[in-house]
């Protein structure tokens, strides 16, 4: 449970961390926007992994 919690904490903190600069442009986007979009994808990735590892899913099936 601890491990799963830490996994979800990473996107919670990361998505709130702003890097406030225009350059370098990545994929044509200003860096500040690119960085934020990256975290949308990463949030998804971390939550999907967390769900795979989450012991709560097993426990519920047994109920």
């Amino acid at each position, binding site marked *: 449970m601890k491990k799963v919690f830490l996994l979800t*904490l990473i996107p919670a903190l990361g998505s*709130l961390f*702003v890097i406030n600069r225009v350059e370098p*442009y990545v994929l044509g986007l*200003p860096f500040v926007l690119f960085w934020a*979009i990256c975290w949308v994808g990463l949030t998804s990735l971390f*939550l*999907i992994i967390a769900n795979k590892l989450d012991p*709560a899913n097993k426990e519920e099936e047994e109920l």
Partner: protein
Amino acid sequence: MNAALLVILFFLVLCIWLGLQARKGKDMNMEQWSVGGRGFGSILLFFLLAGEMFTTYTFLGASGGTYRSGIPTALYAFNCFYFVIAYWLLPPVWKYAKKHNVLSQSDFYEKKYNSPALGVLVAIISVIAIIPYLVMQLKGLGIIVSQASYGSISPNMAIVVGVIAITIYVTVSGMHGAAWTAIIKDILILAVVVFMGFYFPFHYYGGIQPMFEAINTAKSGFLLFPEQGLSISWFVSATIMTALGFYMFPHMLAGVFTAKSAKSLRVNAGVMPIYQIIIVFSLLIGFSAIIQVPNLNGTDADLALFKMAKMSFDPWFVGVIGAAGAMAALIPSSLILTATATLLSKNIYKVWKPNTTDQQLVKLSKMLVPVIALVGLYFSFNGGNSVLTLYLMSYSFMVQLFPALFFSLWKRNPVTVQGAFAGMIVSIMIVAYSTITEMSVATLFPSFPNVIKDLDLGLAVLMINIAVTLGVSVVTKKSAARVDDDTTISNLV
């Protein structure tokens, strides 16, 4: 009648037809009507909850906000914090709801705290907060349809037709109607927004980077967070406040209750962020309009998307955009109607008349749908600016319901009924007072550094709320009872 109007009408009829189809083979009792019989699997749930996130805001607000103030509102538009909250908060709420046959957000408070009075308070706060939300959707609908029909339909006419359509299918199919229409709406929005998000930058600027470079030269500082005002501090606090308040809305929790299992909610939390990517395209549309259609001031900024569309496409395609936008307003409105009708009938009327049968309750809820729709119509036509004020207040209002819900999921709930009451009432009064007098953290403490001055007021009041809730609970502790174990937020707390 022009091509755009025909396309919009076609989709409206399709929407009503699907909404009515949805009830086939279902015996419409209260549980079926209000939470879809709690039988929605991951896919249908995904469309229902995602449909709720993609409202007129995705369509007009995100592009208009970006047009108006650039990066700060652009980043605020995709809130990843929502999903982390959803991952932990929703499964235990759902489990408790399933076990105790909870049908509405107020039910949850009523049963957790064993206090019908608290349920009534929550229901009243929610109805006050949700009506402006409905009105904003309806106003958005009016703008979208009148723009897309090249002015041949007035905003008010569009609102009336839209309200009649949703009233019909919500009354008949309840939650089932909303879920099925949500699917077509999402496909249509996806196609339209992604297309325009690519088309405008390439057509008018020769690419995405050239577009941003042009904006950076024309308006220096527009692609960064400013030192004060919409600063990073504002972004962080507003993001947290919105994420905490988001799931407190009665129609959102009702959406959550439609889930088949707690696992489908966790899967959903993981997949939903990918859906947020659509908003990126809406932002690109907003950015592309900055240089192409300059000088849209105030609320006119919300027309940025349609101004761009009309100068670039044939009327029939503007009609498709209009249809997508109209559905973006209609689906959330139908969820709001279902949830509000459930609240009023089950959590206010039934508390007053406890021996109402399930059958009577369904009938009453269905009768309330057109009544609430009429109230929405009235404020759309007569509300003026007061509606906007109320709308700004609605998130700050809803987030004040968070502490009582959150603490109730602990193994040992430290909050008593009195504590929950005191916290809600004090914080709601502060929010109402400060919204009416246009008070903010900055006007209260003008000499504080910007980091504190730019904090979101709703979040600041939430801190006061938590302090009052816990303080009063400590004093009234004696009567507090233990709650059962398997519906708590696991081993976390």
